[in-house]
């Protein structure tokens, strides 16, 4: 038999039909819905008089457009002050109630950012096809799923048919060998990868992340990496199944028990690329070369080690790059040649589907513990990714560490990652952010985003400017706690 990649295996096992025109009908096991990209899809179903193909494949929750302020959340959906937002959240509730779709409502245990919620509830399982009207759906690939974002027309298509019309992507493998140093997190690894291959480097491809760095990484860390596959242009990012995958899944709410669990595990263990499987593109990085990363521009590929200088337009190799750097520096209000570790920060955001899981909270708390937010910082938002993350963090006392340091402990949601709610940057403000996109205006009109890890963001909050978190860690190494 021909050697197959993990992606090939997932594709083959979900193929309903290969159509004559070269497209394929692909079966979808799990469909995750949220308030922003679903209302027009439900409306489409109603207009066409169609019902969902089946109900037990769908799961929904509001996340993008909800307040993270406790005082606003306690008032429920009816208490959302912005009428347009209230209607959108209410519409998700109404649609899920009407069609019978399982929803974790705004203040219910289980609610959270779609890509935090799915895996933590065990709604996402290895070997599944997972789609959601959100480009960061690649996150679920950390559990060896074929997971990707779709548009609203496809949300409607999946609801109505349980299938997508797809064409097969190419295979790409990003291999990172070695052991990362102290203070180097999964976020730094994926930012370094994007820096190397570029924001369109993975277009048309499904990326499999392999090598000792990912084998050593926790499942939550792998989620951070797969989450940002889309920032390298790839709709799909994946890591093969190993013992960590199996033990992560065990015991979660929707994960099978008893004989069914054993049966599932024996299948899941086959979800690895064959030894001699073919990849159209192979990329190699070495852990030794990766140190904490920070973006300085307006695309995730505009990234550099924290020890570097902001690039100079005149040093660029061609006119196109020069123009790109000039435009980015102009927007960011930065001069070429400035040390990255001297850039002042106005606000800090720790959260998003990239970095809002319990390990991220612990990582940030480890740096924040016993320290104070710098006086020049206007706000530090700590936004847990889900109700379950929030409860766990509070049980560990992390909320108290953040509050004692002068940070705000918020309710779960997407928050300042895309700034659809009130959590946003002001014009010209710099933000140390653990989110995934540093596009112009992403976190608020005129806002200037610097992407980095939770540890780096917490360190920036304390220092008042971007700083190499490794300085903090060697300082506190006597505590015996390692990241």
């Amino acid at each position: 038999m021909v050697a197959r990649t993990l992606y090939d295996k997932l594709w083959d096992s979900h193929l309903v039909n290969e159509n004559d025109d070269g497209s394929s009908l692909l079966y979808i096991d799990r469909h995750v819905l949220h308030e922003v990209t679903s209302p027009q899809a439900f409306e489409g179903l109603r207009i066409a008089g169609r019902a969902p193909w089946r109900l037990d494949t769908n799961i929904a929750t509001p996340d993008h457009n909800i307040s993270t302020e406790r005082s606003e959340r306690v008032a429920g959906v009816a208490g959302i002050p912005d009428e347009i937002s209230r209607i959108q959240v209410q519409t998700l509730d109404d649609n899920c109630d009407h069609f019978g779709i399982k929803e974790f409502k705004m203040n219910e245990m289980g609610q959270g950012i779609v890509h935090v919620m799915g895996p933590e509830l065990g709604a996402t399982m290895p070997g599944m096809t997972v789609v959601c009207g959100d480009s960061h759906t690649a996150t679920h690939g950390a559990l060896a799923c074929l997971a990707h974002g779709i548009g609203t027309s496809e949300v409607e298509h999946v609801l109505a048919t349980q299938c997508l019309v797809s064409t097969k992507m190419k295979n790409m493998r990003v291999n990172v060998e070695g052991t990362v140093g102290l203070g180097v997190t999964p976020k730094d690894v994926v930012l370094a990868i994007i820096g190397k291959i570029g924001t369109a480097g993975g277009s048309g491809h499904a990326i499999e992340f392999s090598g000792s760095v990912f084998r050593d990484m926790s499942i939550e860390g792998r989620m951070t990496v797969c989450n940002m596959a889309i920032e390298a242009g790839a709709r799909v990012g994946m890591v093969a199944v190993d013992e960590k995958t199996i033990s992560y899944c065990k015991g979660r709410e929707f994960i099978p028990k008893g004989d069914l669990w054993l049966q599932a595990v024996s299948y899941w263990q086959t979800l690895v690329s064959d030894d001699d499987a073919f990849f159209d593109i192979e990329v190699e990085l070495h852990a030794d070369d990766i140190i904490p990363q920070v973006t300085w521009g307006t695309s995730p590929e505009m990234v550099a080690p924290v020890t570097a200088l902001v690039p100079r337009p005149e040093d660029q190799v061609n006119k196109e790059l020069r123009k790109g750097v000039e435009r980015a520096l102009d927007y960011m209000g930065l001069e070429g040649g400035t040390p990255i570790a001297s850039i002042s920060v106005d606000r800090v955001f720790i959260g998003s589907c990239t970095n809002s899981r319990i390990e991220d909270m612990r990582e940030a708390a480890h740096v924040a513990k016993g320290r104070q937010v710098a006086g020049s910082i206007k706000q530090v938002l700590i936004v847990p990714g889900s109700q379950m993350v929030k409860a766990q963090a509070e049980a560990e006392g992390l909320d108290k560490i953040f509050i004692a340091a002068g940070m705000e402990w918020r309710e779960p949601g997407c928050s300042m990652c895309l700034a659809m709610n009130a959590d946003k940057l002001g014009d010209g403000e710099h933000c140390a952010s653990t989110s995934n996109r540093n596009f112009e205006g992403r976190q608020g009109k005129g806002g200037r985003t610097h992407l980095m890890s939770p540890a780096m963001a917490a360190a920036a909050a304390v220092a008042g400017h971007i700083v190499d978190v490794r300085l903090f860690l060697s300082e506190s190494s006597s505590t015996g706690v390692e990241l």
Partner: protein
Amino acid sequence: MKAFTQHRGLVGPMDRANVDTDMIIPKQFLKSIKRSGFGPNLFDELRYLDHGEPGQDCTDRPLNPDFTLNEPRYRGASILLAQKNFGCGSSREHAPWALEDYGFNVVIAPSYADIFYNNCFKNGVLPVILSEAEVDILFLELEGAEGYELDVNLVNQTVTSDSGEVFSFALDQFRKQCLLQGLDEIGLTLIQAEKIRQYEVEREKAHPWVYGAIK
């Protein structure tokens, strides 16, 4: 779905790489539960000097004079000439909705982000891929000629300029047929409903844990 066969129209430029979907339609407009009405907010942050909010009347908002598409010569443009990796970022279908509502029927660029590319076809917007060299030629011609128009033909898969140059483009046949005929893709898939049911029966036997847990 809206059908597309051929289109002739005025060309407007968006001369920068990696135009992302946040730029095409900023997040505050995603609060709408409708598919229509996004045109006045296309490129909102680049196009206007003030901050836009959903539901606002845009007719009296201050236009950014430095934003090329605001120049009178590009009023009524229906073909957007763009650079590589156009539409990168989020999966929001509001991006093609906004382009279509503004009046763009065609985008021409050297490459697109995968999800955006796919979303265009669902909304009667044709994303044409030409080589970087060909796109460069079109940018040069556009700059030099006011009222510059192109003819885009989906049947022949060609872009033709008034000087008679013809540029061919590729796309897959399924997308082409759907767009040409304005087909209801869900209806097309449901023709295969029996195959989907068969697949499900087999899947439930082989991987029973996939079903039933979520109630």
